[in-house]
């Protein structure tokens, strides 16, 4: 397949502003977007900068904007996204660019840390000698949210994150639900408190962008609605 990659390039040591550069490539019909980037780096311009590692849609390194929508470049086939023989590749939005397609994710991780992203078992009760018993159905339901790879695609697509730097964002909120919904966790109240102020769940306008772009089927919008439900139950003194 002949395809032209138009890439938003930016070298902070040389460029005042980002600018597009074009690379005509010849690629296999089944090639993914990342194959094109690798080919450019290997044979046209080895300064082209982007992150990639697993190349199997699990490490979360390679999310970018491809033809105006967030994708994992390692698992997105060119044939799915090419328009008029061209693919436009840009870094994720809502995060500062370091160089070319690599963004600084520190604010994303700050929000990840803010929701206490770890299980907090009840210290007053002794842990079981073996495993906590849990229904498989319940574990699989939570794993849908636990399956998030923290690639940042949702964060880039979110119109609220675009305008409010303090908004926790879809990934952190989905993570919060993963723990708030876990029967082994004892910190549900604290978590609901963290996510239910103005930087949290009530900011979400249910635009569903995050759910649409998520490459792993996490459905952050659904998680946010569940958190709202739990928060309301808590306000009304119902068991949560």
């Amino acid at each position: 397949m002949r395809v032209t990659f138009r890439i938003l390039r930016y070298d902070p040591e040389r460029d005042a502003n980002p600018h597009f550069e074009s690379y005509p490539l010849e690629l296999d019909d089944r090639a993914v977007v990342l194959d094109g980037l690798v080919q450019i780096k290997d044979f046209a311009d080895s300064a082209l900068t982007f992150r990639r590692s697993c190349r199997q849609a699990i490490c979360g390194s390679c999310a970018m904007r491809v033809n105006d929508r967030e994708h994992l470049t390692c698992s997105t086939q060119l044939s799915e996204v090419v328009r008029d023989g061209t693919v436009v590749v840009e870094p994720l939005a809502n995060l500062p660019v370091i160089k070319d397609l690599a963004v600084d994710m520190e604010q994303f991780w700050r929000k990840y840390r803010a929701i206490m992203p770890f299980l907090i078992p009840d210290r007053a009760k002794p842990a079981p000698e073996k495993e906590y018993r849990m229904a498989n159905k319940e574990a699989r339901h939570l794993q849908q949210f636990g399956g998030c790879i923290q690639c940042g695609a949702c964060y880039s697509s979110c119109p609220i994150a675009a305008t409010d730097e303090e908004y926790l964002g879809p990934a952190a909120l989905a993570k919060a639900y993963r723990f708030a919904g876990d029967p082994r966790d004892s910190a549900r109240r604290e978590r609901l408190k963290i996510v239910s102020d103005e930087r949290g769940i009530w900011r979400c306008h249910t635009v569903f962008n995050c759910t649409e772009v998520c490459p792993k089927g996490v459905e952050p919008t659904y998680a946010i609605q569940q958190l709202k439900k739990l928060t309301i139950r808590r306000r009304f003194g119902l068991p949560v």
Partner: protein
Amino acid sequence: MLRHDVVIVGAGLAGLRAAVTLGDLPGVDVAIISKLHPLRSHSGAAEGGINAALTPDDRWEDHMYDTVKGSDYVSDQDAVEVMCREAPAEVYWLEHAGTLFNRADDGTLAIRNFGGAGRPRTAFVADITGHALLHTLYEQTVARGVKVYEEWFVTELVVENEQVKGLVALDVMTGELHQVAAKAVIMATGGYGRVYHGRTTNAWSSTGDGMAAAYRAGVPLADMEFVQFHPTTLKSNGVLLTEGNRGEGGYLLNSLGERFMSKYTPTKMELGPRDMVSRAEIIEINEGRGVDGCVLLDIRHLGEAKIMERLPGTRELSMHFAGVDPVYEPIPVRPGQHYAMGGVRTDLNGVTVVKGLYAAGECACVSVHGANRLGANSLLDTLIFGRRSAEHAYEYVKNVPPPEASESYLQREEDRTRAMLGREGTESIAQIRNEMGLEMADNMGVFRTPEQMQHAVSAIRELKERVKDAPVQDKGRIFNTDLTGALEIENMLELAEVISVGALARTESRGAHSRLDFPDRDDVNWLKHTLAFRGEGGPRLEYGPVTITRFQPEERKY
């Protein structure tokens, strides 16, 4: 100069388990340095599960026996014993820390079948077990507030008088090199799969940096000739489909539609150990019963519901990378490089010959896997020996004064990287990387002839020369991935040489090392570990004894 008591290099499962352990111990200053954000580590790609004797009818002794037999008897049985004994408690620890394991009907952990095991003993999270464990462990380091230097690339260890004093690392974001002083360093840098670039299940980042750094610092690498080839990898990009596919009942078929494993491991069928299944596939393909250079993995009879509950990743990967939906069609697969049985030689506390230097996880050779690792034993290995290294390092640093090392190491690394940037010549790093991968795949693969191995040794030495004329084109400081790529290729060529030289020297077939000129195992001469030391003109090989406690070597049949 930055200072910590213990610096852990790498934030995969081995490194994070070490960090959590030290995070729980009082009075020790610990930091992780990792070239990737921890959650990007390759451990996250592990699919099938983790072994432990959890069921009432299972015993750790049986797990140990299966592991020793799987290793073709060249594992150290004291280490295997420790791993298998401690496995159940480790899996329960992970469950308590939050991992959402699949469950049986009674709410206990579900268990699946895996290759080379006498009975089902693999706990799992669908087929994204590594992802689930990596996230759990990272969460636990966040809970403990462990300091992480993210996207710092360790270029060299600082070792004086056979004692570790710290390391030098490149902060990729700024392009600045730093010397970090440490009383103890735990290497947890993972495997070297990219030595087989183009033909490996491993990530771009699996470049064996830690093994190469330890080797340069005078630590021997053990058993590097034992390279695992996994039987079910995709042709297009080498991505793995988990052994769990066969554990759940999947078939391997040749072009005649036969379940050909009945000829090779009749009692275990598709669940033979990986070395034997990979050899069987190559024989089928070479004798004309392959399908376009592959055999077929068929899971259609498991049905869509089970595939979606237990093997959703297989479906996703097959559809993305092979254009095949395994609910309706069998998937073409072939053997691909997967795992390093060899690595930095350690004892069962991660201790190396250099004082204060530890290694754990895939970069280490304890040795629990010998000549062939059993599936689902590696995640276990990373956790058990990550923790044990940390515990040992904790005691060690109590009695060590803060290290005083000269800053000449920093100067040396600055000179080295400047020279790489200043190189002139027409060679290309990408080209050399591709050639190395092909050479190793073609000549250091499942079956090996002396001519092939000799070819690999010469070709790799030639590439080591050529890389000196391969300039780093990106001259910038900030986020220079061209420079890190150049550092990685030098590490990989070093390891490729050790693998090839070790293989040529070992005149027998054992586990994953299978020679056409010496088709049998030779316990009289070769029941020993290879120890490769860095010498002037290449590796200098010595050999060390194997620890045998409970199980005497027997013929390996399944």
